[in-house]
């Protein structure tokens, strides 16, 4: 139906790397943060909770613009990196990865916080009494019992990163093989009025996303923990 050229393959690869890395990094970062947020109701927590959601509020290109300023050669972080002999992060894969992580943060933090809150402390107490240490408890009890929250976090992050292009376009500059992701490519095709290509790629993206989501939800639904 549609031949994928090298440009498409490259974009698919970058997209895939970006989504996978974003999702993984985000889960790693969001889990402890969400855990902390779920533990109490201090003002500090409420503030952090609100701040986490803020990147969502800015138009993506504008957010990309601010990130560009911060991560670029003249920005605080970019300059800091260059001063220790590294490269600034604008127009790099690492840069758009950071942006994606930041941007999707609320999609991961919020459902996890909510899942942790709904969990209650009894399962953790039980696991402790059975000899499970901190990490063990997390892996063997908390994780499976809040799996739903992780699935929501992961799928929202994943899907959102797949579709996001405003931030990426601005900060990444659509450099093939580095920052040119599938959504940017589709956008390009649409801009070029190359609709057959845009449609095909959109369809491809949708099918891919659907299959991924379908598989994840299928597996998840098999393991639903019924509460007696």
């Amino acid at each position: 139906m549609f031949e994928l050229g090298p440009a498409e393959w490259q974009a698919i690869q970058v997209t895939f790397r970006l989504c996978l890395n974003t999702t993984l990094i985000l889960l790693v970062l969001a889990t402890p943060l969400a855990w902390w947020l779920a533990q109490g109701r201090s003002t500090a927590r409420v503030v952090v909770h609100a701040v986490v959601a803020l990147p969502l509020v800015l138009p993506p290109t504008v957010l990309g613009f601010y990130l560009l300023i911060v991560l670029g050669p003249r920005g605080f972080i970019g300059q800091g990196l260059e001063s220790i002999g590294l490269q600034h992060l604008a127009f790099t894969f690492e840069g758009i990865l950071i942006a994606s992580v930041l941007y999707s943060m609320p999609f991961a933090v919020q459902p996890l916080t909510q899942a942790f809150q709904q969990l209650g402390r009894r399962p953790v107490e039980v696991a402790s009494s059975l000899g499970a240490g901190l990490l063990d408890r997390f892996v063997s009890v908390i994780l499976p019992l809040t799996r739903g929250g992780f699935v929501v976090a992961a799928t929202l992050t994943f899907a959102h990163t797949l579709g996001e292009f405003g931030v990426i376009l601005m900060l990444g500059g659509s450099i093939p093989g580095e920052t040119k992701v599938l959504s940017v490519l589709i956008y390009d095709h649409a801009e070029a009025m190359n609709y057959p290509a845009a449609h095909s790629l959109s369809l491809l993206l949708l099918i891919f996303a659907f299959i991924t989501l379908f598989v994840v939800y299928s597996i998840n639904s098999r393991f639903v923990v019924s509460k007696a």
Partner: protein
Amino acid sequence: SEPIRIAAAANMRNALEEIIGRFQQSHPTARVEAVYGSSGKMTTQIINGAPYDLFFSADMTFPQQLWTVGLAATEPAVYAQGRIVLWSTTLDASSLTLDDLTDASIRRIAIAQPAHAPYGQLAQQAMTQAGVWEAVQDKLVYGESISHAAQMTQSGAAQVGIIAQSLAVYPELAVHGHALIDARLHSPLQQGYVITRRGGERPPVLIFADFISSATAQQILLAHGFELP
């Protein structure tokens, strides 16, 4: 070695792709990659370290800005002039005039956002000059860029769009006719380019820049609805 990276205004897409194709025929080893987008965005990117060697803007202001802050290796040079057209998929646009826009049967007119898109400013000027600006106020819808305005028109949601001639000659759009808007109704839209500071240090970039003013390239630009400076 690294490819020649070009940042170009969205309306340059088809013309530039053809020019690049030609250039590569004569320079088989050269790799050229072009990124298209809004000129404002690209200027911002270049200011913040984007790895572009050449910048083909949709106007002169943005290249001038780069030159002023010292990020351009060459002074801005005009490579083409843009023209705007009336275009529609629901009406026979070839016979349309700006005055027709006030007709009640035309409910929506798409233009690019004049606040930042050069072609949008052109459209605004033209309508103002034609004395219909006030009358069409309530019909206007604004695209993020000139191609968005074209897409809005293409979907039929806007009956008429004022778009760049360079877009109207796209094969996809050329199936519908268009009416060229009198150049006297707006100031000339000079599209300028600069070689960035980064590109200035790379010989292949200079070769490509030279190629732009070649007859071949100019021929292509003309064919794609641009006028020459």
